[in-house]
């Protein structure tokens, strides 16, 4: 069997980097240890370069288990870009909190290796392994603030719910295997057809398989870990979970749903649609009550997951399936890109504020505009974008979803749209609460000016510019009709 090493070059680069980081950590002492961060960044850039060269190609290797197409490449770029940003916002945070830096970066890179594998995997076993590779290092990273009760507690919660949902997913996978005799996604799709497509066990198993991904994307009712974990975890890790890990979950969900379970799309579509409604409503409603910024962002990211689930809710089989599903995938992909840009940014600002002061209540953001105009501006832009204000990429993200709904309007689609609308408005309520605090409340006397480090500032600026530029010219990233390749495969 010939292995296409070019196809897995990004993963290889990242693996090598991870090992180098581990080795370098051994070699370096004291403050010098922090330079494993640029090393990791260098490797990430290398992986990005390697990934970019894969754009437009269609490589299949390891049997049919591993496919590198535009869908996968785009997701990989999304992950690697997020990784770069997280490295940027991690540097000083990790150094100052006396983490085990070498191990931290090693685990971070490992987790991202799992993510890179996710969109390319075309086999249930591979998906499972990739998912675990994302999760297991994340369990550890969440608990990395070892002497912090919150951190260890959130690690425990994350871990327990993670393995529980993994077990549920595995049970589902095992039964899918039992039913179809294969773990190959295309094979599964081929096996599910005709009368077999209506066997209750199979349909139930489909649901169980989705649970694992539902956990990753923190869809209701698999979302419980998210707020508790985000608020206990080191903030860069929370950012990673909220953005990259969630995107990986969506990548896996998309692959499974649109390739393997495409023949029963008319079953999981509506149910995922209902989950979408539940997810965004619950997320937004609870977010209204939050007084802690990180928890607010956590619930907001639950709600955002609900928005991203909407296109899945539109999926269907039958004559218009190709068009509708393609639009749905496009919407998901675009939304995830936008979401990554704005959410990492928001977490970045939160890091800058908390790192210096240890404060994270929304009230602590009072007068941020006076303490650091850059951070205030950044927070404003990111939150408005998360809400979907014009001239930010967030608007186009919502636009993409509505567009997917409007491709072929159904009553269910209208209901979803209505929920999207109402929820967008509710969401603005709490986003604006923060924005208002940032700009309109007086800073408590005596708080010093915030001077975020260069890396973090750079990341915030880049993401802010990205949010705004994509807000004006979304065409820079909307034009990738080729990402719908997985639909064609199904």
């Amino acid at each position, binding site marked *: 069997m010939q292995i296409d090493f070019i196809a897995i070059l990004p993963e290889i680069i990242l693996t090598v980097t991870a090992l180098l980081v581990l080795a370098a950590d051994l070699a370096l002492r004291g403050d010098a240890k922090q330079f494993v961060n640029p090393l990791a960044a260098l490797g990430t850039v290398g992986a990005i370069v390697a990934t970019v060269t894969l754009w437009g190609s269609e490589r299949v290797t390891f049997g049919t288990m591993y496919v590198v197409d535009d869908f996968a490449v785009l997701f990989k770029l999304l992950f690697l870009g997020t990784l770069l940003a997280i490295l940027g916002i991690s540097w000083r945070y990790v150094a100052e909190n006396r983490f085990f830096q070498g191990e931290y970066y090693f685990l971070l890179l490992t987790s991202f290796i799992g993510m890179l594998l996710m969109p390319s995997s075309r086999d249930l076993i591979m998906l499972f392994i990739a998912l*675990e590779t994302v999760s297991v290092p994340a369990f550890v990273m969440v608990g990395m603030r070892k002497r912090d009760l919150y951190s*260890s507690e*959130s690690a*425990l919660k994350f*871990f327990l719910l993670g393995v529980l949902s993994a077990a549920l997913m595995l*049970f589902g996978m095992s039964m899918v295997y039992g039913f179809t005799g294969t773990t190959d996604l295309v094979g599964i799709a081929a096996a599910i057809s005709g009368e077999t497509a209506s066997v209750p066990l199979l349909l139930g198993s489909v649901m169980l398989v989705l649970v694992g991904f539902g956990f990753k994307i923190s869809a209701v009712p698999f979302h419980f870990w998210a707020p508790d974990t985000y608020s206990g975890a080191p903030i860069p890790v929370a950012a990673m979970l909220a953005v990259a890990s969630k995107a990986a979950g969506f990548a896996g969900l998309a692959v499974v749903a649109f390739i393997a379970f495409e023949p029963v799309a008319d079953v999981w579509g509506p149910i995922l649609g209902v989950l979408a409604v539940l997810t965004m409503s619950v997320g937004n409603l609870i977010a209204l009550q939050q007084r802690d910024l990180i928890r607010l962002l956590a619930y907001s990211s639950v709600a955002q997951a609900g928005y991203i689930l909407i296109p899945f809710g539109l999926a269907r089989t039958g004559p218009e399936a190709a068009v509708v599903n393609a639009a749905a995938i496009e919407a998901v992909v675009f939304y995830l890109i936008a979401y990554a840009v704005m959410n990492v940014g928001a977490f970045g600002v939160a890091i800058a504020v908390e790192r210096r002061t240890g404060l994270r209540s929304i009230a602590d953001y009072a007068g941020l505009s006076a303490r650091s105009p850059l951070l205030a501006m950044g927070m404003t832009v990111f939150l408005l974008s998360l809400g979907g204000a014009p001239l930010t990429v967030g608007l186009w993200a919502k636009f993409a979803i509505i567009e997917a709904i409007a491709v072929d309007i159904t009553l269910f689609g209208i209901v979803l749209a209505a929920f999207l609308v109402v929820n967008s408005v509710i969401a603005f309520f709490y986003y604006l609460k923060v924005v208002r605090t940032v700009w309109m409340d007086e800073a408590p006397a005596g708080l010093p000016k915030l001077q975020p480090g260069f890396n973090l500032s750079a990341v915030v600026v880049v993401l802010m510019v990205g949010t705004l530029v994509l807000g004006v010219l979304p065409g820079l990233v909307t034009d990738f009709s080729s990402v719908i390749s997985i639909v064609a495969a199904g």
Partner: protein
Amino acid sequence: MSPIGPLVLAAFLFSAGVYGVIARRNAVLVLISVELMLNAVNINLVTFQNLLFPGDPAVTGQMFALFIIGVAAAEVGVGLAIVFNMFRNRASVDVDDADLMRW
């Protein structure tokens, strides 16, 4: 032999694991319950492999089970480490003590 026997056994073990996860207070016992669930999955896989698809050259079911065992080992390691860490911080492994964060 009919596959239904092992499958029902697996379902039972799985359910017992779920029970343990939810009811057990000691974090280590919760982890044990999770392992029970994973083992149940393995029974499923082996049953399907050997009873329904014995001729599969890729031996998918058993390979899957092997991978699950491997992953389960990794999870146990990480899980115990998390529990130990928590124990060191608060001298307790009670899951329901871990409720600092809510709402």
